[in-house]
């Protein structure tokens, strides 16, 4: 099966990467964009999708600072 894992900085945590992107937008003429947060997308194929959450907790995300979401594609 194919799956995508979305990893985001935890809410409330300062995300300097998102802030830098947000600050660059007005200079390019994109006004009215706020609350930009930058995370990661991991695409993978798994023979057995049962342990994907465990894999995320152990490696793909650091649960102390990041939230993750597993999207299983059929």
């Amino acid at each position, binding site marked *: 099966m194919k799956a995508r894992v979305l990893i985001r900085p935890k809410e409330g*945590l*300062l995300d*300097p*990467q998102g*802030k*830098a992107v947000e600050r660059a937008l007005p200079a390019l003429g994109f006004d009215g964009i706020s609350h930009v947060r930058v995370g990661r997308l991991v695409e993978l194929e798994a023979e057995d999708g049962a342990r994907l959450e465990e894999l995320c907790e152990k*490696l*793909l995300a*650091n649960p*102390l*600072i990041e939230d993750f979401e597993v999207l299983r594609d059929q």
Partner: protein
Amino acid sequence: MTTFGVLQFPGSCDERDALLACERVGDARLVWHRDSSLDGIDVVVIPGGFSYGDYLRAGAIARFSPAMEAVADFAAAGGPVLGICNGFQVLCEAGMLPGALLPNAGLRFVCRQVELEVVGTRTPFTSSLDEGSRLSIPVKHMSGRYFAPPKTLDELEANDQVVFRYAGANPNGSERDIAGVCNAEGNVCGLMPHPEHAVDALTGSADGLQLFEAVARTGELRYSVAS
């Protein structure tokens, strides 16, 4: 004589300086990341750099190496472990130290001399230092912003687990100016600044040498008790 083991991962870059710093106070050898034996080693140093390219998150992949599994056993048995910069990140990712290191608040790589206050002296690396004393040591990192939830930070302070704080300007936005912490037992210590780069007055400061001298001394005490 105390024997130091300095870990070397693909992407480590400060292992030579760490080795030289250790050799000033004892014997030292490199431990390759695939080695799973720490036989004959009294103190483990996990040096700075970009282990495994720092892909995914700084320190995230190095924790799964055979050498780190050996370090986990070594630490569980009470062995002294010092993580410097990337080594600190590896120890946090491995769950051997509380908290995490996030990208610097200013989003810039910082490389400068900083003033550190010695806050905790119960680790073998700070046992001979005076609480409240200052050390001049360089930092050089991209992800050095120490983070832990407020409750954890309160616990760290209550349990005397904060070892170093930035005494001058906070270079990276670390919570409560924290530059280094230790585990609950005190034998595992991590810090972002580089004591191994401050062991000779020729390069600006020899303050960092005190950490290596302190742990070498605890080793000698142990041997005199054993013999």
